[in-house]
């Protein structure tokens, strides 16, 4: 089954894959966080809230306004960066060094970590391995990348 | 108690200027690239075991070549690194290898790291609902668990107290101490949790054993602390865990005791290998060891006052409080007591202290007790 990125179906597919591999995720340890994903697409924003508890992804939903959501942190990047990362994961079965979440967000150049509470921010690192392995599950999906939106003009 | 660096770095003009110059020009000193250290490429000798500390036992990095007295390093510098001028003194009090070392210390550490089980999830707590223990068994078991949770973390506090006093070159020992600290926290945790599932909660603290804990805590040297903690006390607790597994009221408890005894055996193993090393390399310690064991064994014998430990054991091993249960329990407990002391002296024999039996009042009383039991039988 093909899933489109970005879409709620994509993240639901990751959730399902994580459930299938729960023994592996269990060995990584407790994974207790709620974080947001924001994909910027030429003026349009796709935003999702991903909830994790104990060893499972317990919730995936789309949201119109991520800034109003009680998330620990938000991974934010433009569509091109997300797509490049996912293509890299699919090519190598897992993100290579240049495309890991850590590298992409390191200085906020390609991807940013947005947060209000430093405690929440630090959860990205407390659960770093689990976050990366969750994203790496995209290697097992058949993904159709949505075409980039035409840039919107201010005031139009 | 506090220490202040030899300089406030914000006021060290040379330091600040060098940083600013580096960042402005990208010109680096890079002298560390030519550090006067050995170039090695360690590999796993056994790929299934991964890369272990034993694989790193090469040249100046290794522990085999470590001298008996650490004269060259009183800082935090990693063993084998180049030590520049100006490193601070760590105030290590123990700088003699034979005070702390043990054969196979690196093996015990790696084993500990790979065998960290989790009291929260590795005991099948949900299966406890299948069991309903009679009141006397439940209470006796809760009391035994109360004793166990009470005493376990002395083996966190005592080694941890020494960790910072050891020279940094003995990091394999420090690392082992860290694993033991965690093991004991886990033991205190699992026994506490089990006691709080029984319906009887925790019960009575043990005065006699608390005094013994104070003795363990207040040793004069690391070697003495380790001897009584790892070899004598934990050795006897290991025997207790093995008997407890035998007399466990449920399968869940058998599993729990099997898990804790793995860790305990490792600590006892370190204790034995440490004593062997001390006797092989620091023979002057022999008489000090005997004097310390004199008092340790006094506390062991004084454990007879701990009826809050002895009596639950009798009830659990006899499986009840009727007279026939008590009689059966007394037989098993007497055997346990003999075995506990026998195994202690066997360990000392194996470590190279066979003369301990002749000197020890505990050994004499043990033999007398064995004779009485045999006569009664």
């Amino acid at each position, binding site marked *: 089954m093909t899933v489109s990125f970005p879409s709620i179906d994509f993240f639901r597919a990751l959730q399902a894959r994580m459930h299938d591999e729960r023994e592996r995720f269990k060995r990584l340890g407790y994974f207790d966080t709620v974080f947001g994903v924001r994909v910027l697409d030429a003026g349009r924003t796709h935003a999702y809230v991903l909830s994790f508890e104990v060893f499972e992804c317990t919730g995936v939903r789309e949201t119109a306004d991520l800034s109003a959501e009680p998330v620990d942190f938000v991974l934010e990047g433009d569509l091109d960066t997300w797509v490049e990362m996912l293509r890299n994961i699919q090519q190598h079965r897992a993100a290579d060094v240049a495309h890991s979440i850590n590298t992409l967000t*390191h200085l906020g150049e390609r991807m940013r970590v947005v947060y209000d509470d430093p405690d929440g921010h630090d959860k990205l*690192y407390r659960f770093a391995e689990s976050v990366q392995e969750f994203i790496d599950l995209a290697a097992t999906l058949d993904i159709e990348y949505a075409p980039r939106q035409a840039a919107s003009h201010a005031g139009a | 108690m506090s220490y202040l660096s030899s300089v406030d770095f914000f006021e060290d003009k040379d330091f600040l200027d060098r940083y600013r110059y580096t960042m402005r020009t990208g010109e680096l000193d890079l002298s560390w690239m030519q550090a006067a250290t050995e170039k090695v490429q360690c590999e796993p000798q056994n790929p299934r075991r991964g890369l272990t500390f034993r694989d790193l036992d090469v040249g100046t*990095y290794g522990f085999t070549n470590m001298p008996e007295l650490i004269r060259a390093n009183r800082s935090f510098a990693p063993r084998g690194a180049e030590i520049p001028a100006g490193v601070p003194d760590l105030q290590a009090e123990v700088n003699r290898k034979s005070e702390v070392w043990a054969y196979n210390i690196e093996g015990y550490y790696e084993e500990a790291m790979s065998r960290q089980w989790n009291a929260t999830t590795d005991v099948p707590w949900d299966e406890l609902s299948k069991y309903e223990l009679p009141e006397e068994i439940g209470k006796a078991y809760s009391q035994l668990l109360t004793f166990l949770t009470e005493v376990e973390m002395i083996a966190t506090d005592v080694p941890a107290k020494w960790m910072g006093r050891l020279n940094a070159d003995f990091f394999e020992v*420090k690392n082992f101490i860290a694993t033991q600290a965690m093991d004991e926290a886990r033991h205190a945790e699992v026994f506490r949790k089990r006691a709080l599932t029984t*319906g009887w909660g925790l019960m009575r603290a043990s005065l006699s054993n608390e005094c013994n804990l104070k003795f363990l805590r207040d040793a004069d040297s690391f070697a003495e602390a380790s001897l009584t903690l790892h070899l004598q006390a934990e050795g006897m607790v290991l025997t207790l865990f093995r008997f407890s597994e035998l007399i466990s009221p449920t399968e869940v408890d058998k599993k729990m005791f099997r898990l804790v005894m793995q860790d305990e055996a490792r600590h006892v193993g370190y204790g034995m290998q440490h004593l062997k090393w001390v006797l092989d390399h620091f023979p002057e310690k022999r008489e000090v060891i005997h004097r310390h064991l004199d008092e340790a064994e006094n506390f062991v014998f004084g454990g007879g006052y701990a009826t809050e430990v002895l009596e639950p054991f009798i009830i659990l091993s006899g499986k009840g409080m009727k007279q026939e249960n008590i009689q059966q329990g007394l037989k098993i407990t007497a055997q346990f007591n003999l075995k506990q002391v026998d195994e202690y002296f066997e360990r000392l024999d194996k470590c190279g202290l066979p003369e301990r039996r002749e000197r020890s*009042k505990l050994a004499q009383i043990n033999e007398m007790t064995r004779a009485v039991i045999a006569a009664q039988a």
Partner: protein
Amino acid sequence: MAYFAAKNFFEDPELLALTQKVFSGELTLTWYDSPTEKIACKPADQARGFTYEDCNVGTYGYTQLPEFIRKNYSMAARGSQIVPGLPDLGYTINRKSDVWSDNVGALYEEAKARRWAPAVDIDWGALKAAPLAAELEAAMSQLCTSLEEIALVMMEFPSRWVSAINQEFIELKSYLCAQMIDEARHVEVFRKRALAGGSGLKRASATVEQALKEILFAETYPEASLACNLLLGSLVLDILQHGAAVSAIDNRIFRLCSQDTARELAYGMGHMRYHLAHQPHRAEFLQDFLDRTEHTFLGIAASPEVLEPLIVLAGHGTAPAALGAGSRRVQAVLRQTVDRYLRRLAAVGLDRRGRSRLPHFFAAPN
């Protein structure tokens, strides 16, 4: 220093009489009707297992722990029946808000669940299969040499205090044990990384060690925790992020280490929040402490043994252009690190923006 028993038990007629009585079948049963709370705890969430939070009930729980522990200086388990005559084991930290954090139980459970073993959880063969260029490997070895020094101190910090802390705070002491083993793992993995790559260890650092000794030898536990977990932890976490971008094997090593370090930060923040909520007058003392201690951050971050390998790794080499690019990148990293550190402090009630010397130094045009 050694403690001796109150009696020579081998010549104690009272003990002999008691032993004979018990072994004749006449049990004392002094413990049988212990007046402690009778409860039966069980896991609230089977998937999570049986946690300390599940045991946070009544007199056994940590929520009901008083601020000052006056009645128990022994190792008698919290909630058990205290009997007369229990010895004083010498605890000098007996005030809850000096050590506690509301997240300490959860962090202890998380630490156990997220354990890993460097010997087998790292693919050491990958180093041989895909070695770094010699100068990058040398830089990584130097960085690991410094990180091994730092990890040793971060391991010794909890060990210095744990035996001084009252046993009533068992969850906190257990968390400190977890921190010890986490940092033992870091001592191990950084040493293994340096010795497996072909370059060996490099140079210890006088400035790093002076700074580390000042942090480690802080006078009180709150100061030590603030300096080690928050100040040093903030710097270490960002260094680990930086190191994770070097190669596949380092990606995994540094990411796993960052999990452990982030947990220490979480405790450090929780501890400060709790401490200042209960002892608000301590805020100015701690501000004063940081006024004179924050220079250690500089002493470590700007020491050549830390700074230069970070630059070489960031620029991917030692050619002038690489070093220039690497310097600019590391400068940006350190600015970000300081900003994150100050945000953490502000979040716990120690706002130092406008007071700390760090932002001005790291933001200064060079």
